[in-house]
């Protein structure tokens, strides 16, 4: 009974991530790639994403402190960040990246900074949510991964 409840909980958590727009289809792709050979594939990928992109975020922060702003460079960074974020299906983060690049195109430094702050926020929120989700999934047992309801 406990187990079922936990499973349900995990399922609900997962579903809400989609419903609330934090994750998109790509995340499901990752889940589908998970198999016996890579039983923790999704978590590994997410961990890799957060580790790799933290460096990128640092670079962007630094770049945003420069004066004048180098929009080309910022755009390049953001392009990378966006590409990375699409890999795990980080929907909201991706949206902020797109917005950021728009601001870059028109040279709106203020807009860039604002958007980036927002992107970082979303990035962190998602991280916490995913961490909680994975932890819950681990606790509730492997069967959870087996029944992935299609979004």
């Amino acid at each position, binding site marked *: 009974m406990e187990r079922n409840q936990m499973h349900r909980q995990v399922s609900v958590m997962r579903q809400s991530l989609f419903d609330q727009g934090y994750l998109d289809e*790509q995340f499901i792709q990752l889940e589908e790639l998970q198999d016996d050979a890579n039983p923790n594939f999704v978590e590994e990928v997410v961990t890799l994403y957060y580790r790799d992109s933290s460096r990128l975020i640092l670079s962007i922060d630094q770049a945003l402190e420069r004066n004048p702003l180098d929009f080309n460079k910022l755009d390049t960074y953001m*392009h990378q960040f966006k590409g990375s974020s699409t*890999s795990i299906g980080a929907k909201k983060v991706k949206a902020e990246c797109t917005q950021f690049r728009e601001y870059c195109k028109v040279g709106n430094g203020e807009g860039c900074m604002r958007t980036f702050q927002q992107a970082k926020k979303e990035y962190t929120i998602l991280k916490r949510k995913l961490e909680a989700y994975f932890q819950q999934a681990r606790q509730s047992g492997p069967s959870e991964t087996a029944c992935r309801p299609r979004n």
Partner: protein
Amino acid sequence: MSFSAPSMENGFSSPRNESFPAGLRVLVVDDDPTWLKILEKMLKKCSYEVTTCGLAREALKLLRERKDGYDIVISDVNMPDMDGFKLLEHVGLEMDLPVLMMSVDGETSRVMKGVQHGACDYLLKPIRMKELRNIWQHVFRKKIHEIRDIESHDSYDGIQISRNGSELSDDGHMFCGEDLAYVKKRKDFENKHDDIGDHSSTKKHRVVWSVDLHQKFVKAVNQIGFDSKYEVGPKKILDLMNVPWLTRENVASHLQKYRLYLSRLQKENDLKASLGGIKLSDLPSKDPAGSFGLQSSINGNQNDVPNGRYQFSGDNFFAQDVDSKNHEGDLKRVVSETKRTLTADLPDPQDMRTQMSFDHSFGSLDSEVNFAAIPAPYSWSKAPENQFKEEHKPLLQLEDGFSQLPPSGIHNHIQIDDPLQSASSITSGLSMTGREICGPEKIKPLYPQYSSNHMSILSPKESAFDSFPVQSKSQMVKHQSFEPISTAISSMKPQGFNLSCITDFESCQRNLISATDSTFEPFNEDLTVCWLEGDCHSMNFGLPNVEFTDYIDPGFIAEFPIYLCDTLTSDTECPFDPPEYSIVDQGLFLS
């Protein structure tokens, strides 16, 4: 499909022949580790044999080490060490493998660029597994085309092989299998030359462009260039090459790739020049807009085919392992070269104090001409004198030098106002240390391999222009564009550049200039005016036959086998392809 496994068995490595497409050997290149992991997993699930790589250079190394080790390459467009398009070109030229590009950016222009550079497909991230399942079709398609090539090759020999569909469909598949197998086998241990004997047999072999062969090719191209300026055609090249078993088709397709390569180099050089060392915005140039334009255009267009006409991929080619240092040297050379060629008017091109010889050029240029934007300081300064003079210094030389030239050519801004300044900025890209470019000889260093061999085509003159490529991306001039010089000149004009000092070019310039306002836009298409909007407009300096219309810098091309451009599709940018190619080639093959 009768792509029977058994018949393919011999030809392909064992995993492959089991049950194509299972076991397809894929090389994935992406600087994003997350994506690399995901793609690897996806491809493995498709039963492919996956090798991952985080750097483009690394990928090229892998590919070169095992020329026959992979069936298909998937690469991201944006990578830190090398532009994905560049990698694409290299792979196409050296290994002739199907390459798929990937990017999170799906803008039409980018996709177009990918296709222009020879990508078999352009995938948008996030990539679904089902998209990856079907990539084997590109491998198969290529094989079929190869067979067809071989066929035409045979017919060239007098063996008429009907190429109608039925023939292929019936025998095609089997033919495919056999041929592929055959091709593979042959490829393994013989290069083209050895195939001569077998040429007449029904076994078709794939033409492998070895270094030697490529050199012959470049030589031929250069030769033609000199003789009949605008007449570069595969047939001519073929004749000159005098390789009996080679067909016109082989040459034609190779030529096309080469042109792309050169144009890309050119563009890169231009862009780099402009963006790289020189932050154009920083340049005091008179024409802020110009430089910026260049810069932005460079950025934007860096990969645009039209702009990149003159892509002297030279630097790229070699570049594989060439780092900025090389470029510097080259740039310098180029600059000096350009200076020389440009004209006697330019004062002391050798005077490069700043990192970029470019500086000097400007300095000198400045006095001479209002090279407001002549980004070509790099190329200009040095080369102009010699360059234009009809010297045929090995292209390499120029290339080196020019490629080094940072986008300086990029905009008119180039600093005429403050040559040193710009030069320095540019140099950043180029990392040229203000060494003096002694002239054509100097340029060589960039690609030592090439310079000696190939570059005959690009006379210093040309290189001057060429090198002027706009280095868009911050790379500095990597040989890319000889255009710079020409473009520089052209671009300069609008700026008030007084090209009069360059009498030769004057007419060219006028043409160019008239076409453009301040940025040689008009010539964009044809001339890759690096300077101006990042396009490299090849200025025809004094080249009588300057035809600004289609290719890159007629004037510039004068020396250079512009004809190459001509014959090459109008899309190809680099008229100087051949020379570049040779240079590059060396780099490529020599890895």
